[in-house]
């Protein structure tokens, strides 16, 4: 892949309910913040990719409904109706084709407007699964049991991952959930989909996130003019797995190892434990905090290797399809602040990681 760069990132605070803003106003918040941060204006943005879910918005072609907020009028715009991390692959393709120099990516989600469990049910197979009435949480519970049955990780370690996420989120002003709970307190909390309890399953959040990407020449000129580092996107890889809940072993990381290997190869990474400084993954459950770690080739020990979900991860804020883009924004922010040179951002779509996307960011 020809390298492209991420010039800036903006996100809202992620909260349970934003009644003060409709969803296009929520999208506009991050666009306005991103333009202010980067000094860019709409005429200098060549193409726009938005990320949203029609079912979540309760409105079909939900991208058309935010065109005013993202300044898409008169431009070639398109949409990713998957996790926002996958928009990285789309944006990079648009930039490397040479037709566009800059690409704005905007994701929004207002979980509070609908009923996330009931909406999730509509993603299940209508012949074998959906008539039974499962939800995304059911899939998380089945995955957790499979994962624990492997015996590589204890039940306690899963609760500790959740406790650790809440503690990390205390330092993240945008987090939806924060707190100081012990792993024991978490295991005594209300069950969500056993063996998973509250705080081991990601919250449903309202929030938005935006990124500005550009070709390397534009990025270098921007960095020189503003005295900021160039943060390159050196790799982006994705793959999709089988759809049916019983067609793959949910307790394994699925296609993620293959995706991570492809991203490492593109970025020239041979030793992820030593070369990656910070990683943010979309963990819809505390089991995924550990399972995706295995998936990207890192040891189970959370203290080894890169800073792992130092924002608290999706476990502390899950604004729908914006969740993976928030991972990218968090990695970008840390690299731009000098907290490392190489970062990994991960997103996923489909039940319990049917599809994965991994991006590698590097400070030049």
């Amino acid at each position, binding site marked *: 892949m020809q390298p492209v760069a991420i010039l800036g990132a903006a996100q809202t605070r992620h909260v349970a309910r934003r009644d003060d803003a409709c969803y296009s106003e929520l999208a506009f918040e991050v666009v306005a913040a991103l333009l202010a941060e980067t000094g860019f204006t709409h005429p200098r943005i060549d193409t726009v990719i938005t990320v949203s879910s029609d079912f979540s918005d309760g409105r079909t072609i939900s991208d058309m409904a935010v065109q005013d907020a993202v300044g898409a009028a008169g431009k070639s715009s398109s949409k990713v109706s998957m996790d926002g991390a996958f928009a990285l692959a789309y944006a990079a393709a648009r930039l490397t084709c040479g037709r566009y120099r800059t690409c704005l990516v905007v994701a929004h989600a207002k979980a509070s407007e609908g009923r996330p469990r009931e909406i999730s049910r509509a993603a299940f197979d209508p012949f074998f699964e959906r008539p*039974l*009435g*499962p939800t995304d949480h059911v899939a*998380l*519970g*089945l995955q957790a*049991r499979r994962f624990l049955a492997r015996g590589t990780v204890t039940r306690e370690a899963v609760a500790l991952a959740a406790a650790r996420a809440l503690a990390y989120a205390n330092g993240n002003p945008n987090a939806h959930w924060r707190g100081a709970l012990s792993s024991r307190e978490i295991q005594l909390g209300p069950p969500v989909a056993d063996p998973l309890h509250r705080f081991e399953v990601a919250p449903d959040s309202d929030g938005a996130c935006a990124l500005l990407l550009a070709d390397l020449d534009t990025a270098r000129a921007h960095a020189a003019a503003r005295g900021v580092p160039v943060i390159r996107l050196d790799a982006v890889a994705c793959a999709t797995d089988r759809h049916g809940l*019983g067609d793959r072993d*949910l307790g394994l990381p699925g296609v993620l190892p293959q995706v991570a290997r492809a991203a490492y190869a593109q970025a020239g990474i041979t030793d992820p434990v030593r070369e990656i400084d910070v990683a943010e993954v979309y963990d819809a459950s505390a089991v995924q905090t550990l399972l995706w770690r295995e998936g990207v080739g890192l040891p189970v020990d959370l203290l080894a290797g890169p800073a792992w979900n130092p924002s608290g991860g999706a476990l502390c804020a899950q604004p729908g399809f914006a969740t993976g883009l928030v991972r990218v924004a968090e990695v970008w922010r840390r690299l731009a602040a000098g907290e490392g040179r190489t970062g990994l951002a991960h997103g996923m779509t489909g039940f319990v990681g049917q599809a994965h996307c991994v991006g590698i960011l590097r400070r030049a």
Partner: protein
Amino acid sequence: MPPDPVPAPLAAPVPIAALTIEPRAVEGRIRIPYRWPAGRTAGAFLARLRDEGRLYGLRCPRCKQVAVPPRPRCLACRVPSEDWVAVGPEGELLSWTTAPAAPARPAEVWALVRLDGADTALFHRLLDVPPDRLRVGLRVRADVASPTVRRGAITDLIGFCAV
């Protein structure tokens, strides 16, 4: 050339933050009936479940793996599978979880079961298994509704009971 007209002075704009905004929400409900033809593969599985009260899978001609639910192409080899084979009615519990179908609904026990003779797992419900007996690997048996009430849906299978 006439001089440019002098624009009338505009009233000073009121910053939106200074206005008292009454939060308003519009409530609605989207209710659209759908009809999903099950196709040849799922359709045959569901018709045989209705007519015979039995579960069937499709075997890959190359790797011989049996997919239940049936898939028209082998998920591994991607070649068409046309060999129907009866599976079950007993099988092995691979995973389970207790969760409500919706926040206000009572919790149910959901399961992944690998039926005897199958290589993939069927998602369904567990029925009346005492919690202390639940374990991965538990032998379970399909409980199929009586012929008079079967209608060719996955719910013709009521769920799985411990053997």
